[in-house]
């Protein structure tokens, strides 16, 4: 009896070992991919778009990889610890998705030269740190066309977070897009000094609407501008994500950024051992920038114009910052026949003609 029991037990242990081994082996085989997010995933916004990309990556390569995300990681010392912990716990590829993670990412990458890091929206690359960013301005230009066509008051409202080049670029592209179809347009900008504060975003949107804006767009993270536009009976153009369910009547379209392809390609490159550090700046051509489905109120000719421009941007025959572009003082900043270089775009710190107000200094 006892020997029988022992026997059964040893078989069990053996089985458990085998099971354990195979389990751990399969987990070892899989590439671990880590993501660091600045905010909770939520239902719309910057982090949500990155998480959609992560989910698509899982869908595409799910049998070869596992992913893990850490949300609400503040920029600064916390970020460095989280990135390091991800690297230490066996994540070979780590995507850090906020500008403030730039230096922490670089520091950790130095400690783990065999691992790969991809930092979003930064400008420093090293041997094992690449950067990636979307040409958000391309989407902005297209939505500008829609706004320019749909406005009756010729006043557009822009709720903005912080005066950094990325945001200023968006404001300018939007304005140029709108002016391309409606030269009389003016764009009013309100800075709320927060990426995310629904109350303030609402208040700023309301102020813009009162001052005559009848199309509201935003470079902040919440759905409040769209909600406010719906409530006040004006149009809205969302950013980051399709927010149409928050404003079925108001929501004309949204300039969204899509990461599924990039995440899949980059991860595949790591799997194939072909990954190289690069500064990827991808746009419509690469499928990184998309517009959300148009509201039916947008007339067919406007939709056609947007589609035509989209194609032109994709095949390179048109650039949103194609000369002549004038700044606020009327000075030509981009001469006819030329368009801005990526370097100029990256450091953009002036408003184009048509934007009201001055950039906070």
């Amino acid at each position, binding site marked *: 009896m006892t020997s029988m029991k022992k026997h059964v037990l040893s078989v069990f242990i053996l089985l458990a070992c085998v099971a354990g081994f195979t389990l751990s082996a399969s987990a070892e085989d899989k590439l671990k991919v880590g993501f660091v997010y600045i*905010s909770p995933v*939520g239902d719309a916004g910057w982090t949500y778009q990155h998480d959609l990309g992560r989910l698509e990556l899982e869908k595409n390569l799910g049998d070869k990889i596992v992913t893990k995300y850490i949300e609400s990681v503040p920029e600064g010392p916390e970020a460095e610890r989280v990135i390091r912990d991800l690297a230490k716990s066996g994540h070979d590829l780590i995507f850090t998705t906020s500008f403030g993670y730039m230096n922490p990412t670089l520091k950790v990458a130095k400690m783990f030269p065999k691992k790969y890091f991809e930092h979003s929206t930064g400008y420093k690359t090293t041997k094992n740190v690449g950067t990636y960013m979307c040409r958000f301005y391309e989407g902005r230009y297209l939505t500008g066309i829609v706004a320019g066509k749909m406005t009756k008051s010729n006043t557009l409202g822009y709720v903005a977070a912080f005066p950094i080049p990325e945001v200023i670029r968006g404001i300018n592209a939007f304005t140029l897009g709108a002016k391309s179809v409606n030269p009389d347009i003016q764009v009013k900008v309100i800075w709320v*000094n927060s990426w995310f504060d629904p109350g303030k975003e609402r*208040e*700023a949107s309301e102020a813009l609407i009162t*001052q005559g804006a009848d199309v509201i767009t935003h470079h902040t993270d919440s759905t*409040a501008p769209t909600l*406010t536009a719906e409530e006040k009976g004006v149009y809205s153009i969302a950013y980051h994500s399709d927010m149409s369910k928050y404003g079925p009547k108001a929501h004309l379209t949204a300039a969204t950024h899509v990461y599924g392809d990039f995440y899949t390609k980059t991860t595949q490159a790591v799997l194939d051992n072909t990954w190289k550090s690069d500064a990827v700046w991808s746009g419509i051509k690469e499928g990184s920038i998309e517009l959300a489905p148009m509201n039916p109120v947008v007339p067919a000719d406007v939709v056609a114009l947007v589609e035509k421009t989209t194609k032109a941007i994709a095949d390179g025959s048109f650039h949103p910052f194609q000369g002549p572009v004038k700044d606020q003082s009327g000075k030509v900043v981009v001469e006819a026949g030329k368009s801005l270089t990526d370097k100029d775009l990256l450091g953009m710190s002036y408003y184009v003609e048509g934007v009201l107000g001055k950039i906070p200094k």
Partner: protein
Amino acid sequence: MDFDIFIHILIAAIAAGTPFVYAALGELITEKSGVLNLGVEGMMLVGAISGFIAMAKTGSILVAVLCGMTAGALMAGIFAVLTLTLMANQVASGLALTIFGVGMSAFLGLKYTSIALPGVPEIHIPILSNIPVVGQLFFSHDMLIYCSGALFVAISWFLYKSKSGLILRGIGEAPKSAHALGYNVIKIRYMAVLFGGAMAGLGGTYLSIAYTPMWVEGMVAGRGWVSLALVVFATWRPARVMLGAYLFGAITIAQFHIQGFGIDIPAQLLSMLPYVATIVVLVFISRDQNTIRLNSPASLGITYHPNVQ
């Protein structure tokens, strides 16, 4: 700036000020009883998500409001047990309550970030709302804004015209004497703290179902702290709480309008304005020792228990 925009700033200020009105009037009652609860931000957040969940589940504004108030009161209940029964320090307990509330609301709301609510309809009071300017300002709001007005009237009456209000103020002034006169200081303070929590919860609910009908983590965004400041700003008087709440709202809205007109002042400086204004007013009213002494509850923040001391 033309007249229409001026009126708009006032109307928007009333809506923007309403969460402050609720939370600050609630805190006013709490503080009048001699208890300082710094956990308003946490209570508002838990109130916001609870009201939001109730609204999403039932679609009833009334149920949402009740749930938000109950949740706020429950949060305040934790604070009351800590500070009134267990005599823990009020400042520390209030801050701990906020930390707890931030986490708790985020946790409760995990599944509710993707829901859009219809919002609370405006009710234009017949005839009155047709009066030019005044109608727009006072008779064309949603139900919760009218309720905040009613709350103000009720609290003013309670504090200065009712006997219970007198007792409450007495307890805030001199809990020992109130106890000697036979009043149950702890019980009354419990009620005041719970009321404060319920109102903070209601203020949060207003944000999540009416002002910006959605739920996102941390959406109260510091309004709880401002409400605390408003109580002092108002020298513990309900009418000045209302004035302060709307003034704060108006300054916030006005700075956005200033930007919209393209006036060249750094946005950060404009954002500082409401806080600096609060300090300036605080200094102005505190200068006269008597004003503060007449209005500030003498035992504010000091632990008291009848079985002790």
